């Protein structure tokens, strides 16, 4: 079920809020939230609920087993078992067909087609997110950074909590532990106000901004061979803005819902298009994922402590896997590698003191790189990505006026430029210091109604596919 649907907003959320705040004891509250979250997940496809439950059970047991022993070999055994099961399930459901297709492709190239049957596996929604949540827990226990919980409801609530279950933010047990151990006992007006604010901001970003760009962007990406210089850049810009407002809108809704049910989630976006270099971009874009890769992959690989060459290699490996995390497509892999290479180049240039000094130049260059790379992310295959990127480089020249008129209607251009200015200049939802006054409440309510009116045909959030 989508956050931006009538069923969720008026069918699921109100009873969950009532139940959450009406129940008296900690166990009742956590049990209720767990069951509500499982119901939320099963609403999409109940057959995949056992998969999430098995991941939850494995990591709960593994973490306790790691904690129970001081023998390092046993601790390693439990960690490796947990990671193998988690990554095995993720690998099977997300990457098995990709692997088989590529094996068949290689076979055809070398003239020995193995003809392996493709399994047509359905990707369980949210698997990448809850697997990473759960894995971070066992790793942190193994690192002795966190004490595992014996209270199973604390753990099931941590993994399944519906606001972050499907598309993040990827929360750590450390983030939620105190909140799970002592769940808030009443919904304060403060929490309700902040929750409403974030929920409405998210709805507006998704429904009134991202979804409005969607048809124009789709048209542009469906006609890569007809694009010229301007329309190709418009495709890249339009898609980047759509993705940003869609995903940051989802994250805002998740944060708002968390506040409404008594939790606090970490910030997931911090005006990424204001980044002054590619490293800065990754501190601002999908922050919970980049922090996950930093803490559980980049730093264990050696981080930036083993000299420039090794730093570049570590960055490329990290970003390769971050790209692959997004999906089993070569476009994601290449997108990750391109970012890894850019991070590496930036690290080397920075060490040599060769980065531009002007903030404006840095911002423009970073933004241009990021939106060009997003073309690879969006394209159905590398051929389309290559076509659009070559047109962005001017290979087809500037298009005729009639082509521009066909691809770039005034509404799209105005919307795109408005959102570009907004993303570059305005404070983000975490920075806005809206005074909690009645008049702002009335305005927020009116905007919320406008967003709800546009729900009639809900569009999926882009990050659901990951």
């Amino acid at each position: 079920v989508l956050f931006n649907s009538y069923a969720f907003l008026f069918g699921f959320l109100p009873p969950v809020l009532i139940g959450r705040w009406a129940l008296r004891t900690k166990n009742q509250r956590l049990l209720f939230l767990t069951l509500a979250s499982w119901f939320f997940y099963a609403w999409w496809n109940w057959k995949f609920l056992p998969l999430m439950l098995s991941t939850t059970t494995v990591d709960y047991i593994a973490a306790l087993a790691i904690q129970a022993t001081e023998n390092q070999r046993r601790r390693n055994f439990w960690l490796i078992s947990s990671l193998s099961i988690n990554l095995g399930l993720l690998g099977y459901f997300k990457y098995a067909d990709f692997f088989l297709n590529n094996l068949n492709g290689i076979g055809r190239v070398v003239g020995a087609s193995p003809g392996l049957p493709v399994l047509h596996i359905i990707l369980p929604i949210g698997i990448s997110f809850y697997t990473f949540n759960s894995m971070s827990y066992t790793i942190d226990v193994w690192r002795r950074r966190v004490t595992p919980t014996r209270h199973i409801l604390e753990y099931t609530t941590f993994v399944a909590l519906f606001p972050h279950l499907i598309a993040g933010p990827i929360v750590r047990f450390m983030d939620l532990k105190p909140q799970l151990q002592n769940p808030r006992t009443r919904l304060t007006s403060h929490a309700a106000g902040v929750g409403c604010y974030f929920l409405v901001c998210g709805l507006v970003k998704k429904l009134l901004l991202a979804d409005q760009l969607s048809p124009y962007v789709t048209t542009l990406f469906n006609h890569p061979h007809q694009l010229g210089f301007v329309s190709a850049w418009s495709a890249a810009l339009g898609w980047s803005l759509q993705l940003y407002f869609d995903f940051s809108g989802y994250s805002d809704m998740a944060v708002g819902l968390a506040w409404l049910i008594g939790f606090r989630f970490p910030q997931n976006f911090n005006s990424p298009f204001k980044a002054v270099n590619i490293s800065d971009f990754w501190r601002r874009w999908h922050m919970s994922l980049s922090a996950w890769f930093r803490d559980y992959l980049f730093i264990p690989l050696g981080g930036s402590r083993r000299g420039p060459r090794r730093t570049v290699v570590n960055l490329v490996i990290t970003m390769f896997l971050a790209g692959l995390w997004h999906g089993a497509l070569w476009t994601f892999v290449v997108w990750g590698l391109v970012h890894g290479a850019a991070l590496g180049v930036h690290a080397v240039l920075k060490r040599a003191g060769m980065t531009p000094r002007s903030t404006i130049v840095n911002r423009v260059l970073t933004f241009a790189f990021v939106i060009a790379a997003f073309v690879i992310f969006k394209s159905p295959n590398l051929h389309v990505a290559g076509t659009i990127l070559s047109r962005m480089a001017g290979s087809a020249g500037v298009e005729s006026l009639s082509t521009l008129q066909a691809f770039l209607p005034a509404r799209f251009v105005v919307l795109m430029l408005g959102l570009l200015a907004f993303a570059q200049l305005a404070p983000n939802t975490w920075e806005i210091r809206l005074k909690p006054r009645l008049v702002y409440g009335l305005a927020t309510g009116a905007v919320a109604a406008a967003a709800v009116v546009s729900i009639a045909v809900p569009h999926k959030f882009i990050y659901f596919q990951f």
Partner: protein
Amino acid sequence: MESIAPSAGAEQVPADAPDAAAEERLERNLTPAIAEAGESAGYLRYALGTVVTMFVVLGAIFAFNVIVDPFSLAGTRLLPTALENDRTAKLDLIDKLKHNPQIVVLGSSRSRQADPKWIQELTGKTGFNAGVTGGDSADAWVMVRNIAARFPHAKRTYIWFVEQTIATNGINPQLAQDRRSSGYLGQAGPRFSLADVGTYLGFAATKASWRVAKACIEGHCHGRIRYQPDGALTPASQKFLPEKAASLPKSVKPHLKAAERAPTHVTPFDPRSPRYSYFEKALAYMNAHGATPVIVLNPIYPSIYTALQKRGFAKRNAGLALLRKLHTHFHFVVVDCTDIRVWHGKKKWFNNATHVNGPNMKLMLRYIVAHSQGAFR
């Protein structure tokens, strides 16, 4: 609480994104600026203001849409619907008929160019066009029964224009809510459901309601498409037909693309399927009253027809196979008009990719009458 986020637009660029020192920074920013003011009475006013305003605005929108009822879902019927409501218009005309029509035209908007006066010229028999926008077998069933109720002892026969899929069991909401159809549709008609609440909270419904309300305020509340007493379109209505495309090639293009991707194989249509229930009911009723209806497969624009032919025309073949099966139980004549060349139709005489215009319909009717195997005698 320390945030890993740098301050916006910072000149001092933080160290490379993943760095060693980050290992120590496990606490993340959980407190947005809006929450920094701490508890205050203002939050209660803000939260209540948000929730109450949202529900008041949504309630007003919903009430407005239910009152105007642009898609005829609530059954309010105070104003005309946003969509053309020719079902009610045709049922009204049937109520006012002075003589029994000897030939009744049934079908969708693709049949409404069939002029009963031309049919009379061809056959010598009076006619009535009961075709309606989006007309399906439930519409045909209700029209047949209403005409029969009006002239219970008179005989008549039928020209029934159908698509390649022959029929569905869907019931148009406007039809279901007309009191004159309720007796024939039983409980099958749709009721206002939760999904309709969503529809009437939506932008499309609100826009349609606004259009209807505005038209009423401006004094042209009732549509510009009018019918003559025999169900034929008035000449003045021709230019307002929704199917009248500004550009015929443009209207053909998407259909052509779809035809080029048409499935080469379809599951055979099963006559026992509920989708044919009203179709078969209507055939049985016509036969029981001595009529042999003429079932006409609607024409297809030539280039689309060619594209479908190349793909094996699976749907039409399945439709014809179904009609052959039904022939063992019912009496009817099939006239296949899909290929306009057989009835000497003109490629230019199409209103859009799917609708022939009046002159082309005349040519087609001449062919239908000639190949009706005496059904109109």
